[in-house]
């Protein structure tokens, strides 16, 4: 991913849309507390898989905290890596979908059209981040848990692929509010549920085309890297390295 300011400027001039949504994950702040996970479940109507399906490896998490062990006792370290859809600029999941259920929005989001998805699951294979999650069965909520479901987010039926949307419903309402006032969305005005809840502020979200946004600044950090950069997927999520001695 080019960090060149000129290129950024070029991009914002040429791009049809004025926004480019990106996220920064500061691993030096992330404590692995998983507040983001529940926030995501609450916001996005993620199904409750239950013990049996969870044991089959089918629990759905749009954001998950991966834990990697390093070393042996007593010099052992556990390191956390929050992984969500990276909203790649060159997303491997997009071209392989035979029905265009996975497509790229003009604002850099990697969108999944649930109604169009027929469940061939090629996108899931081709995502190197294993960010895509599949509904193996129809979802179910014991009454009245379904009262909590967010009316802004559709519930996915069985046989459909789903994944992190950067809380597109929040982006939309934020943009509408800004549009009504005839201005651009301010930095920090739109926060996906995970970003909003993160106690340590390890997650930062914003418009990369705004040169003054926190995301734009943090992306330039020397600690920054992308997951599996060599694959050339150009993710919209930048990780900031955890520091250690």
């Amino acid at each position, binding site marked *: 991913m080019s960090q060149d300011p000129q290129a950024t400027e070029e991009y914002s001039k040429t791009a049809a849309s004025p926004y480019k949504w990106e996220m920064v994950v500061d691993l030096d702040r992330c*404590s692995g507390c998983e507040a983001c996970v529940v926030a995501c479940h609450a916001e996005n109507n993620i199904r409750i898989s239950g013990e049996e399906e969870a044991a089959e490896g089918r629990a759905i998490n749009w954001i998950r905290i991966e834990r990697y*062990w390093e070393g042996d006792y007593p010099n052992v370290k556990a390191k956390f890596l929050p992984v969500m859809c990276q909203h790649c600029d060159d997303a491997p999941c997009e071209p392989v979908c035979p029905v265009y259920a996975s497509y790229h929005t003009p604002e850099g989001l990697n969108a999944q059209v649930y109604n169009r998805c027929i469940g061939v699951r090629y996108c899931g294979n081709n995502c190197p981040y294993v960010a895509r999650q599949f509904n193996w069965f129809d979802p179910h909520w014991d*009454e009245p848990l*379904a009262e*909590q479901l967010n009316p802004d987010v559709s519930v996915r039926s069985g046989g459909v692929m789903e994944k992190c949307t950067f809380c597109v419903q929040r982006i939309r309402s934020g943009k509408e509010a800004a549009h009504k006032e005839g201005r651009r969305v301010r930095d920090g005005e739109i926060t996906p549920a995970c970003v909003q*809840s993160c106690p340590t502020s*390890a997650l930062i979200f914003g418009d990369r085309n705004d040169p003054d946004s926190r995301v734009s600044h943090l992306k330039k950090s020397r600690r920054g890297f992308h997951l599996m950069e060599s694959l050339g997927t150009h993710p919209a999520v930048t*990780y900031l390295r955890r520091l250690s001695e």
Partner: protein
Amino acid sequence: MNLYRRTLLKILGLTAAGSSLPGCEREVHNLVPYLLPDDNIVPGVANWYTSTCQECEAGCGTIVRVMEGRAKKIEGNPKHPVNEGKLCARGQAALQGLYNPDRLQGPLRREGKRGQGQFRPITWEEGLAEWVEQLRTHAGKSAMITRPVSGTLASLLTTLMDSLSGRLVMYESTGEQTLRTANHLSFGTHDLPYYDLANADYLLSFGAPFLEHWLSPVSFGVAYGKFRQGRPLVRGRFIQVEPRLSLTASNADQWIPLRPGTEGLLAIGIGQVLLRDGLTELSSFHRTSFHQTFSAFSLEDISTKTEVSEEMITQLAHELTSANAPLILGGGPAAAQTNGTTTLILINALNVMIGAIGRRGGLQWMEPQISPVDLARPGLASELTLMDLAGEFEQGSRTLLHLYRADPLFTLPPSLKFERVFDHAQFIVSFSSFLDDSTSMADLILPDHDPLESWGDVVQQDTIPVPAWSVSQPVVRALYDTRPIGDVWLDAAHRLGEPLRERVPWNTLHDMLKSRWQTVLTKHDSPQSFETRWRETLQEGGLWPSNIPMRQTNTVIPSITYKPPEFLGNSSEYPLYCYPYPSLGLHDGRGANRPWLQELPDPLTTGMWGSWIELNPTTAKALGIHPGDRVRVTSGYGSIEASVMVFPGLHPDMIAIPMGQGHRAYGRYAKGRGVNPMVLLGPSFDGQSGSLATGGTRVRVERIKGGSRLPMLEESGKNPVIGRIQETGGL
């Protein structure tokens, strides 16, 4: 974080302009009648109401998103001083308490024998009449066990129990009684200090699980973010010392394992080096006593006993003094031993030696403030207090038991024989919303509203720099035929007649709440009317005076004699220490009926929906146990069976088990799932604080037949492959 404030202002502005705050002006019973068109309810448009989280005792401010009369999401209140807009997993899952399918939907009367779990629905009138009858019969002999409540409700309950000559016991299994006692003995105050982590640049923590459940985890989380990356040039360094690598420890720059229960000894070692190398200046008050305390053991001896090298001890001491704003915390496993209080006092002494008391980036106490409710949280009960209560029931001086959101039969080890309270109580009334292990023993259940359906306030003056007096308001109409506990008690008080009626003249808790807030809000010399001020307070989520001066604290640490930890069970029969720890999601078990929390992977083992036994790989190998094998853990008090997770970050002589599972009741998600490690624990106490030493029991582990498929997020956990990191450039 201005941006978040701005967001909230916008949200609240919208609410205020568009709806003139339905939640604040109306009474709970006529809030949002959805069949009638209401100007305030626009389909598809969300309203946000402030409230206060009551999932733990931290008292985080929340805002609740409500659409078409249903609560959709809980977020942190950006203006609240405790959590600054953030909220933990448990707080957000409170929605699943409100909409839990197993919530009690109305008053119930026991049928059949006690404990059979047979209940018959009754009317409130029947229930109240019977209860009042029992209150009359057992006059002066009632007792109430509740989870800690504060504010108006606490005041009401205290007043009523006083008048009834009853005994009110507020019990919290993770109430940090040890810390409170140690701090009282060290600093002469019952208030917990504000640990200014955000401004510290070096943190040495003796097991304090401040990123998980210790005191105020969200507030510590916010501070931790600032501690690491909040300052342009300073990145705080963090060392955690404890026998098990907790979530908190895994965030440390260095985790130093040590032998369980020897944290105090290590503190002595560090103090000794500080004194030896002249790294600390002591006041005359401490000079003699500290020299005595910290020279009681040789460094070599300490190193052998703690299993921390002498070099490391020296290094820690030197790092502490070379930092600008070092801070030392103690808790978790360090406090869970029979010498817990001593250990924490020693840690406080270290804080004194590094000059952390009253310093920015250290321990601070604010000047006491007059809160809206003249009473803050009454003292919490320790396990020994509960034993005392049990004794009263046995003697017959207490006969009527009230339970409110407390589940002692689940959270206390069976070895304490707390069920004798239930055996001897002649009548048991529960106000809980769920049929938990204890409530299913009740004779009469008068279920409370969910906190999201009720009025309330929370007073938080511990562990924050400014006091937070938060309000919670009903954000949705009551779903079921339940009644707020405050209203129910007031009703009963009025039925009992004078003199009670006079002492609590209000009809509802809401009236009482408002009248108490009136005194405070009008005191704050403002020309506005109370109603305006009250509305503003509700809009803000509460009241938190700024610019509170810091209090000068006198350290009164006595001369301390280190006591080694004592363990139940001899080391030949029971070779392993057992450490049950509160689970991140389920806590002590109260989260076990929330599917989101059941499905929340434990961050380190990634286990979900169950219990497991953690074993060090070397220990497992020596015992011939493989990951996923089923084992039986036996102590002198009980045994449990579960599958093994090999856990690299664990002292080889220790096993660890998450708490929170193994309920006998508590709804479909919790009942019969996993095992309760409390079964293993014996009656081992920290004498000074009276708290249960959860780490004070020894166990043995043996492999048994069978294996079980425990759900795990880490798929490769099924392989004995330790994760490899690649192309991530070092996390």
